[in-house]
């Protein structure tokens, strides 16, 4: 029996400072859009960086993938959809889909991977109990 798929959506509107000389969102800003997606996910499912830090863990991003399919222009509204991808390993994985609100077009897809690092800076090899509890609470782990 597979667990629930957790997804959160958040809306953005392209700022003037986010477009490049070609008039489209500069490719590097999508890293921040993914962060916006993660923040929205954390608010919806009570899974914040601060909670992890309070328990003695930091969760750095160690891998990221971005696929640019279409572009966004200044003032264009878009939606970031962030989906938690479950894994048995001690890592936090998300998939992202950014769509243009006016046309519904898929603009960007991507993924990130985070690991747990303890207070000494060592990689945490197995999922912290609080992470497993969180997965059970939200039905990811059944």
């Amino acid at each position, binding site marked *: 029996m597979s667990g629930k798929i957790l997804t959160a959506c958040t809306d953005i509107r392209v700022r003037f400072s986010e477009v490049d000389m070609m008039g489209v969102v500069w490719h590097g800003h999508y890293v921040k859009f993914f962060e916006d997606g993660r923040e929205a996910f954390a608010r919806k499912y009570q899974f914040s960086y601060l909670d992890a830090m309070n328990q003695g863990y930091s969760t750095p991003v160690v891998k990221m993938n971005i696929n640019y399919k279409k572009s966004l222009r200044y003032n264009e509204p878009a939606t970031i959809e962030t989906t938690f991808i479950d894994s048995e390993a*001690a890592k936090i994985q998300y998939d992202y889909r950014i769509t243009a609100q006016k046309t519904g077009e898929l603009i960007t897809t991507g993924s990130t991977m985070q690991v747990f690092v303890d207070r000494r800076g060592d990689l945490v*090899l197995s999922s912290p109990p609080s992470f497993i509890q969180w997965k059970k609470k939200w039905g990811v782990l059944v």
Partner: protein
Amino acid sequence: MKDLIVKLKKQIVAELYLEDIAPDEIDTDLPLFGDGLGLDSIDALSLVVLLEKEYGVQVVDPEEGKAILYSIQTIANHIQAQTGKP
């Protein structure tokens, strides 16, 4: 022990999708991380899951983990010590 080492090499190549190396090409004493086989920290997490699922062996402590996951030989030694199987 020899059978365990052969099995481990096959499982690691399959689990980590190592495309450029055949299981029998991996030196049993080669360091798995860094300049050796070139595995990274994400691979280490997958190895930990492999050991737990396939052998019922847990690796929790990071310092201990570095020593256990050093090479195929050290992993095999740990499995043998934990399970008591040759």
